[in-house]
């Protein structure tokens, strides 16, 4: 199902024409932002220098810190009287980041959400409970207006009072929910406690934090939904930037609104399709707050294969943050990739520690992983087999030889909050 079939299935030529036209327009509108005037001037770039889409690589990057420095309205390209809404993203330190929307921006955003929801089969016959924060966070109102646009019956339940949420799902016959995957897990637990089967549910839209495929399996089983991954960030409107289609093999990113680059976060060089790197986005349809080459910090890749649904190129599910990336013998490694590999090997636990050393001028990566108590047979040969299996699976994924140490169950550190699993001992060499 399509919300806007024409725009969702443009031919590559039509799409790049549209992208170039919009990129040029974006370049004009950023001239209203002092930060970009200075940046472009010092880079010696004039709007007319951008003749092809490839020329985007000549433009300077925009980082999260730049937006913080512009607090509050430094990145607005239109007068405040044309800004009809403001959201903020909470910063862990200092001031939040402010994002603004014109009337057209809100319409564009709602349209993207409507595309996503229609793509996964939500219609005007659905009852949609939006269980995310409705305040300054973009997730609440973003989904709200998109769901109203397609004509679904919207319940703006926001967060909290899980028992009440469950009552509403049952009493109103809710068919579609949107929340964070961790809240969905909590919802499932409380529903089980209440002995409430949530029979009406059929679709779950989950986003705003990373979640694994095993979590998907569990949520689907416990909530009785088909679960879809939702990706977005406030700097790019909010949720709705990219979304899984019914194939659930990667997320369709809306190329008519977002010019996508995947770059090596260290060198800034562009990665090919199928190569993992940092997602860099130049929004093509933002009026109040246009951005050039925004560094999302999220790690993904452009997928090589097309999709049978007919929409354009997908990105892979987000596998980590660029800040966490390690460069080992010139190869980029993300702790999340290691975690992903370990999760698929039943014989070992999912806790791990990574040590990086430089030995004889070569980077060496050692991974400690716990043996799974249930899989210890008592035989050394079986342990060696498990160790070799982990080494092989890691090599297949990371394309890197690692040393794997099996350690006793329960001996690795457990982390609350942000995990510090990597100890890089190369510093100072």
């Amino acid at each position, binding site marked *: 199902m399509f919300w806007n079939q024409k725009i969702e299935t443009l031919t590559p030529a039509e799409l790049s024409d549209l992208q170039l036209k919009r990129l040029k327009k974006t370049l004009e509108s950023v001239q209203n932002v002092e930060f970009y005037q200075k940046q472009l001037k010092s880079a010696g770039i004039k709007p007319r220098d951008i003749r092809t889409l490839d020329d985007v690589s000549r433009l300077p990057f925009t980082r999260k810190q730049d937006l913080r420095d512009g607090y509050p309205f430094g990145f607005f390209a239109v007068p405040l009287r044309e800004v009809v809404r403001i959201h903020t993203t909470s910063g862990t330190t200092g001031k939040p980041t402010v994002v603004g929307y014109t009337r057209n921006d809100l319409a564009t955003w709602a349209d993207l959400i409507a595309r996503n929801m229609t793509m996964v089969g939500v219609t005007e016959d659905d009852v949609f409970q939006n269980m995310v924060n409705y305040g300054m966070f973009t997730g609440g109102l973003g989904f709200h207006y998109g769901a109203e646009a397609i004509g679904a019956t919207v319940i703006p339940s926001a967060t909290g009072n899980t028992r009440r949420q469950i009552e509403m799902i049952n009493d109103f016959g809710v068919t579609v929910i949107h929340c964070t995957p961790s809240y969905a897990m909590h919802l499932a637990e409380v529903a089980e406690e209440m002995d409430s089967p949530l029979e009406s549910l059929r679709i779950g839209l989950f986003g705003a934090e990373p979640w694994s495929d095993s979590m998907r399996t569990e949520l689907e089983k416990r909530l009785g939904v088909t679960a879809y991954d939702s990706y977005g960030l406030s700097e790019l409107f909010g949720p709705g930037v990219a979304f899984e289609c019914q194939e659930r093999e990667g997320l369709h990113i809306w190329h008519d609104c977002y010019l996508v680059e995947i770059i090596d976060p260290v060198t800034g060089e562009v990665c090919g399709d199928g190569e993992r790197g940092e997602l860099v986005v130049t929004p093509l349809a933002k009026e109040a707050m246009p951005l050039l080459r925004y560094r999302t910090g999220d790690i993904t890749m452009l997928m090589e294969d097309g999709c049978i649904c007919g929409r354009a190129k997908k990105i892979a599910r987000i596998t980590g943050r660029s800040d966490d990336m390690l460069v080992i013998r010139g190869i980029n490694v993300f702790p999340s990739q290691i975690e992903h590999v370990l999760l698929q090997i039943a014989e070992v636990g999912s806790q791990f520690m990574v040590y990086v050393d430089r030995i004889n001028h070569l980077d060496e990566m050692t991974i400690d992983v716990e*043996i799974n*108590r249930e899989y*210890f*047979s*008592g*035989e*050394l*040969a079986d*342990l*060696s087999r498990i*160790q070799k299996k982990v080494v092989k699976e890691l090599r297949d994924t990371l394309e890197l030889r690692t040393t794997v*140490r*099996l*350690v*006793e*169950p*329960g*001996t690795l550190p457990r982390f609350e909050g942000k995990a510090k699993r990597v100890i890089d001992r190369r510093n100072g060499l």
Partner: protein
Amino acid sequence: MDTYVIRQVSVFSENRPGRLAAIARALQDEKINILAFSIAEADGFGVVRALVDRPDRAFETLGSLGFNVAFTDVIAVKMRDEPGGLYEIARILGDAQINIEYSYAYSGKEGAVLILRVDDVQSAIQALLESGAGSMESSAFQ
């Protein structure tokens, strides 16, 4: 046949100082007697194998201390204390197409005893009994 099957306690252990001592200490505290033991090491980790008088209590004690423990079925054979004693046992099992995965020996009240881990415990016991070499009953230890 089961009367000949002896339960060896196998403990997963990282190769770091003090692990063997911790295991021995825990067993000693419970007054569990270690009749024989061996350590097998690989790359960074190992398995401590112990023949004890009270295997269930040893399993429980070590498990409660967080050790990863498993039982392994082994058999015990009295060795003739003369040249060729070991060869004879190896030959009997070899003729029966049984692989010895590992073995260790100790000298007890009954003389020299060989502990064997084989790939087919039941056939090994049968071969040893039929050959006359004999297989020691587990009650001799546990």
